[in-house]
């Protein structure tokens, strides 16, 4: 039901990030039910490259209970090649602003949420793109 739910199905099925493109030209990511720029409701899916760079970061030494086994970890705001920004985990010990990163899929993540149908879902994370790798 609706684009926000569809995003997670597409991530699971196609293992790629998708954004919504509005008729006004805005690329909406993370997806929203309507376009934040023009308030329009007619948008279509476009595939994102999954590449971007770290815009802001932190290294967390505390986390909600379902994450404490993974501490410390790097949470970042990533600026995607196509423009939008997204929050995610970056798998690195040495984060830096400007570091190039690529989306990777964690196949199954158990999230602490009430909805049984959504509790287990794939999750997008990022890893650094090695220097010299232009892929």
């Amino acid at each position, binding site marked *: 039901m609706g684009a*926000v739910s569809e995003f997670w199905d597409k991530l699971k099925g196609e293992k790629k990030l998708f954004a919504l493109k509005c008729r006004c030209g805005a690329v909406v990511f*993370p997806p929203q039910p309507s376009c*934040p720029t023009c308030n329009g409701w007619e948008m279509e899916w476009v595939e994102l490259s999954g590449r971007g760079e770290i*815009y*802001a*970061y*932190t*290294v*967390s*030494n*505390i*986390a*909600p*209970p*379902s*994450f*404490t086994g*993974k501490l410390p*970890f790097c*949470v*970042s*705001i990533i600026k995607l090649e196509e423009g*939008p*920004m*997204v*929050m*995610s*985990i970056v798998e690195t010990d040495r984060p830096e*602003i400007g570091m190039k990163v690529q989306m990777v899929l964690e196949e199954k*993540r158990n*999230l602490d*949420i009430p909805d049984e149908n959504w509790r287990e879902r794939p*999750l997008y994370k990022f890893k650094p793109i090695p220097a010299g790798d232009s892929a």
Partner: protein
Amino acid sequence: MKAQVAIVGAGMTQFGKLKGEMREIHAEAVRLTLEDTSISAKDIDAMYVGTWTPDLFLNQLFPAPMLADSLGLNNIPVSRVEDACATGSVAFRQAAMAVMSGLHRLVLVTGVEVMTQRPTRECVKTIAYASDRLWEQPFGITFPSSYALLASRHMHKYGTTPEQLAAVSVKNHRYSAKNPKAQYGEVTLEQVLSSKMVSWPLRLLDCCPISDGAAALVIARAEEAKKYTDTPVYVLGSGQARASLSLHDRPSLTSIPSTKQAAETAYRMAGVEAGDVDVAEVHDCFTIAEILAVEDLGFFKKGEGGKAVEEGSTEIGGKIPVNVSGGLLGKGHPIGATGVAQMVEIFEQLRGESGSRQVPGAEIGLTHNVGGTGGVVTVHIFSVKGG
């Protein structure tokens, strides 16, 4: 503009780890508020309660009628307000609008939170529920890490240093040591810089504590205020604005756009400028938050907040004394109580009742209260003149 609303009574409990039930802590703040006025609980026409989540902390939903019972109020309208850490000041704004509309004459505004009955790790989880459940919570976000992301951009763009962040904490704890209601006393720069790293670059003493406490205000029509107290404090301006819930939906992370917008609205309504403010209580849930606030409120140029704090410009005797109550960092942060307690401090400052932390001759005061990372922000401006 001539003020339409005035605060005629103000009070707060001790902040910290308190014994007692939510209703008892809440009633104590109301008792202290009414004590200095000619008002009895039966005179109150409506009550707005700001409390963030007794639902999750105490298994208590629907707190407003329960809290009204404990005060013996008449069968008046009572409602609970929730807007994360801006809860208390939004409750105040709703109450002020009810008085301005002519609907009510005398309204009680309260803020209360009881947090320490839960272990810290559960509080961390509960507080993270105020971030987006789809686009933030799945990545293990916490409130320290959200503000750490803001800090990383400020440091990158303006060269703000860990020492400048720490200077905010040292200043606010120096003032909380002078505030008998505050949770904590003094800390040194070395203590802040060697405290446990919570979420780089924020250390434990860059973060506000988990607290219990309550605060209350009674507000009245400005023209009737002197019936209840000799020295009312008038509400000159009120601004509220929103920004996206999530940081990734904002074009820039070196300011909180809703702070700028709420401040602009409040300054315009009050007919004052940033430079006219004599004393300010700003939302310092983390040290970086105070640096962002003093810039976004217009006290200092963008990027110079860290330097201003380090140079003493935000101390008593400096350009603009900020958080002389001790702020959230030193006084404590019982979430729903905070926005109301900031106004209690300004009420006392403007009446010259703040003892060893009094800002001499303060005439115009400002409060700034932030929900989350700015999803909701309020700015209020007060003066003893304007009635």
